[in-house]
């Protein structure tokens, strides 16, 4: 380390030890530096308590019960939907469909919106930087309908090629499916601008918000998109719960994609009628506790304040970017102007998986690999990267630990150059 930095000094924006006890434990005898928030976030005590409290005090099935507990659980579940609505600034609560996560939300749109509508030659526009969950559902839809994928290329710095985007938009473009924030590069895409252009040409727009919602305030009406998908577990909520925002006039005309209880109005062998949205898309008993815990997570991040979280993570991103750039042999992958708290990098002579193992021994938890974005890795001609991704609880000390561990790895591999 050769340039002056001020390590470890930073005002925390929350009570770390009380809110996230998991982060206070030692891993392999070292202080844990959890930098894998892009994969999943840790859960604050308020979320864990909300889920436990539901099972202790309020558990019952929803919507059909006449008993008190059932009505109480229904109120909590509906309340959670209203919380998600306000969180995304959706116009109406019935525009929020609970799903297992982003992946299920995208599959829902592919099968319920796309399958009945698309025909051979219709175009689905997405980008090279999509997560597999925003590629494969569309490939399946293409097989079913004869629609074709068009791919917006990514520039060397990790930004979308907006000229190419303009060129790819056309009268056959039926859908733009684009990630708000790249999980592998951190790039924040200009989704409002892109939505405007796509909708001018009559296309429907889905935004994958999995990597965005925990790091900046999201307003679906300001973006103007038709669908917005996110996962709870990347937003400090449990796994297995997420949500799809869908514009009411679209949801209204979409058929069910899964059949079962809770999504019907009446069932007879000669004619079954379906419930209106969002129930139409929530077949079976949903993840009630998960939805309630998701609402608790939203309350938590809103208490801390998304503007503060954003500022905190941006400051850390800047600190971490500079610190990594100071290490000889380290190269950042993804240097867009507008970036979220994701540091994807390569270390000369050390494969990301070897690096991940060595960092783990130092208590530094990062991700190594293709980050479920194999086409993007192919674009950059690399098998994968090491990725440190930030959350609201991270501190400069976590990035200092990352830097120290990289130095150790370089020393171990004998690739450390005099600096």
């Amino acid at each position: 380390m050769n340039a002056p930095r001020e390590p470890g000094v930073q005002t925390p924006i929350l009570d770390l030890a009380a809110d996230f006890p998991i982060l206070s434990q030692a891993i392999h005898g070292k202080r844990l530096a959890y930098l894998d928030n892009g994969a999943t976030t840790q859960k604050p005590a308020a979320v864990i308590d909300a889920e436990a409290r539901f099972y202790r005090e309020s558990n019952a099935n929803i919507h059909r019960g006449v008993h008190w507990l059932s009505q109480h659980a229904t109120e909590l579940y509906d309340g959670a939907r209203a919380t998600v609505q306000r969180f995304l600034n959706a116009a109406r609560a019935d525009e929020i469909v609970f799903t297992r996560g982003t992946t299920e939300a995208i599959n829902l749109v592919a099968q319920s919106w796309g399958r009945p509508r698309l025909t051979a030659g219709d175009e689905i526009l997405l980008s090279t930087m999509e997560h597999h969950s925003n590629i494969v559902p569309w490939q399946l839809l293409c097989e079913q309908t004869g629609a074709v994928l068009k791919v917006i290329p990514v520039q060397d710095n990790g930004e979308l090629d907006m000229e190419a985007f303009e060129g790819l938009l056309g009268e056959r473009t039926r859908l733009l499916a684009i990630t708000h924030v790249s999980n592998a590069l951190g790039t924040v895409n200009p989704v409002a601008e892109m939505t405007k252009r796509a909708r001018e040409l009559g296309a429907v727009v889905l935004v994958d918000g999995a990597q965005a919602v925990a790091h900046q305030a999201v307003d679906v009406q300001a973006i103007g998109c038709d669908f917005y998908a996110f996962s709870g577990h990347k937003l400090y909520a449990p796994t297995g719960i997420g949500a799809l925002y869908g514009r009411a006039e679209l949801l209204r005309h979409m058929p069910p994609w899964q059949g079962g209880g809770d999504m019907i109005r009446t069932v007879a062998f000669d004619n079954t009628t379906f419930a209106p949205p969002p129930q139409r898309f929530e077949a079976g008993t949903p993840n009630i506790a998960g939805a309630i815990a998701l609402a608790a997570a939203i309350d938590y991040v809103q208490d801390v304040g998304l503007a503060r979280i954003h500022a905190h993570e941006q400051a850390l991103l800047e600190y971490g970017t500079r610190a990594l750039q100071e290490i000889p042999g380290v190269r950042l992958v993804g240097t867009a102007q507008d970036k979220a708290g994701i540091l994807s990098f390569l270390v000369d002579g050390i494969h990301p998986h070897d690096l991940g193992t060595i960092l783990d021994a130092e208590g530094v938890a990062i991700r190594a690999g293709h980050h479920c974005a194999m086409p993007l890795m192919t674009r950059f001609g690399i098998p994968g990267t090491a990725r440190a991704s930030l959350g609201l609880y991270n501190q400069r000390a976590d990035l200092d630990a990352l830097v120290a561990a990289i130095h150790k790895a370089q020393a171990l591999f004998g690739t450390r150059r005099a600096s």
Partner: protein
Amino acid sequence: MTDMQDSLRELYQEVIFDHNRNPRNYRPLPAASHHADGHNPLCGDQLTVYLQVEDGIVRDASFVGHGCAISTASASLMTEAVKGKPVEEVEALFRDVHALLTEGREAADPGRDFGKLEVLAGVKDFPARVKCATLAWHTLHNALVGEHETAHTE
């Protein structure tokens, strides 16, 4: 020093670094009688193993590809170990190395002298990395049994 640091040093020994930096028999083999591809999509590790078998003996062995230090060193050490051995012995070695890497020393033939390959045993403390070490060996096995589907270690 913690157990983890010990395990790390046991895995990343000098012989691993040496074979990672200077992989042995790293070349295609135009005269190969057998070859197979191996791919670990999770890591992106990819390699091709070539064998030249004559009269039931592995006369030459080589590989090309890319991967982490563990997978590269494993492939390099493997090509050295199998050269000059009868095919049946190579298959027996594959089984023993597989047992060594996935279950530990006690699962392998007690009479087996692993020689330099012993260093690979360090991966058993790193469950996420076992596949890196076994990829070359699965690919070797596929090459010998004429299995032309790409070997996977997932």
